[in-house]
């Protein structure tokens, strides 16, 4: 393991910001009361909790009462979808519309609802991972209770037309949820202007702590409990609030939103430099939309090699990356997202995701481009597939 790590796996998780860490510290042994307690120590904690709620609401463009704290993005996704499904079922509406490239927190919840008698329509995406508002509109039926489309994809970074989809759903009177785990703190999100009814976010994707997130539910959208117990979160999410983490999340979100424009500009430039550098490798293809893309996301497929060995060798060179190959997913199939955008298995196995942060430098990008070139060429040198591709025995899929 090289001692100088270039961390390019920020879509998996981020390093906590100093500001967020410091915002947490007073709540471990200073203000440590239970926000549900009536004494002063408890009320000090309750005040802090309310303060965090208001600050987070301000970042999202909603009111504090519309914020429910959860254990993270997955819980928020589960609760959002289950709540909308319960509301729909009461009116006999049991159809949910989503896409093929959602996170498993969404897809697996939908699978479970299917087993419980709901119908699920998963929309196809185009070769860049985009779904159109028209597709959503055409799919909405009289018995549709929810549309759930992710704000930005965690693997290929494609940003969906959320504002337009929100408008379609509002016009059709269907609830709209978006898994915005990869988007919040990175691109501008305004739940009111974008007509979003339910939104999930996770703090550790924007330099906040792990294990804490938010479910935004527009006023009037009643939530169903996943966790029963005490009356925390207006009775919708039992369990003593993780106050230090919530304070850290609020600080991290404020910081991310305050520096968003500047950070996005810097990251986009680095991202494009990295993309251009990797395009110099023959038989490589960019996954995801070139323009409608998260500022820090790069995702490529290299023909003739397998992603896990690529990751391990990059790790040896001090680069932390990710792949959608079957070997890294623990299943026999490569990423469902890569398959949905039309990458065949052979090619999807050779994927590499590099996700940048504000700490990434131009030198890091140059070093990474060089390292990926070397490793890809080394692995191709021992690949029987590459030999067949070169000799013409097998046809190139990526031209």
């Amino acid at each position: 393991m090289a001692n100088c790590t270039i961390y390019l796996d920020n879509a998996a998780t981020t390093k906590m910001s100093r500001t967020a860490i410091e915002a947490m510290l007073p709540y471990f042994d200073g203000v440590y009361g239970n926000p549900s307690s009536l004494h002063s120590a408890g009320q000090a904690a309750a005040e802090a909790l309310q303060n965090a709620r208001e600050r987070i609401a301000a970042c999202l463009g909603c009111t504090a009462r519309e914020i429910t704290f959860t254990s993270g993005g997955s819980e928020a996704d589960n609760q959002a979808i289950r709540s909308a499904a319960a509301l729909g079922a009461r009116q006999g509406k049991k159809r949910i519309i989503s896409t093929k490239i959602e996170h498993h927190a969404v897809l697996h919840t939908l699978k479970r609802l299917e087993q419980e008698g709901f119908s699920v329509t998963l929309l196809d995406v185009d070769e860049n991972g985009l779904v159109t508002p028209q597709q959503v509109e055409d799919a909405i039926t009289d018995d549709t209770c929810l549309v759930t489309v992710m704000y930005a994809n965690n693997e290929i970074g494609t940003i969906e037309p959320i504002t337009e989809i929100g408008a379609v759903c509002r016009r059709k009177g269907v609830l709209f949820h978006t898994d915005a785990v990869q988007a919040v703190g990175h691109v501008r999100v305004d739940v009111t202007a974008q007509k979003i009814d339910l939104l999930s976010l996770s703090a550790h994707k924007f330099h906040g702590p792990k294990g804490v997130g938010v479910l935004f539910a527009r006023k009037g959208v009643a939530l169903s409990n996943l966790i029963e117990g005490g009356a925390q979160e207006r009775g919708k999410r039992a369990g003593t609030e993780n106050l230090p983490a919530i304070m850290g999340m609020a600080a991290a979100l404020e910081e991310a939103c305050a520096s968003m424009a500047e950070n996005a500009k810097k990251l986009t430039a680095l991202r494009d430099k990295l993309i251009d550098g990797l395009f110099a490798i023959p038989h490589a293809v960019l996954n995801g939309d070139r323009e409608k893309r998260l500022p820090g996301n790069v995702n490529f497929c290299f023909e003739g090699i397998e992603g896990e060995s690529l990751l391990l060798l990059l790790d040896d060179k001090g680069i932390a990356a990710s792949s959608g190959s079957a070997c890294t997913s623990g299943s026999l199939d490569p990423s469902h997202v890569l398959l949905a955008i039309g990458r065949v298995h052979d090619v999807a196995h050779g994927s590499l995701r590099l996700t940048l942060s504000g700490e990434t430098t131009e030198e890091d990008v140059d070093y990474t481009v060089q390292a990926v070139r070397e490793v890809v060429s080394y692995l191709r040198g021992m690949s029987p597939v590459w030999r067949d591709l070169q000799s013409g025995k097998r046809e190139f899929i990526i031209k």
Partner: protein
Amino acid sequence: MALYSEKVMDHFRNPRNVGVIEDADGVGEVGNAKCGDIMKMYLKIDGDTISDVKFETFGCGSAIASSSMATELIKGKPVSEALKLTNKAVAEALDGLPAHKLHCSVLAEEAIKKALQDYYEKNGIDYDRSQFPQCESCEHCEL
């Protein structure tokens, strides 16, 4: 990375016997690019001895390490001994593989057997077919 043993990482980082034997006496290729691993073994056989062996692999870290270890285990050995190489022996020599990676050692065993089968076929040597796996029957690549 704690996913793999030191031995696996050593064979992955410094694979032994990578390459091609142009005038190989037996060549065996197993696996499927769709599943994410293909192994190709090249054997040079002198008399009854495997005098040289090379491999090419498209696959994950454990696939490359399994190929490398398998070549080490049969190089310089009599053909009869190479035929007896099991996936278990390959995995054990690597100080174990994670459960979901055991198929990599199976591929290594099968690639060697296939190369030996090719050697027998090419030279019109009679052999017991029952001791060779039928690739078609393998369920690893059901897609």
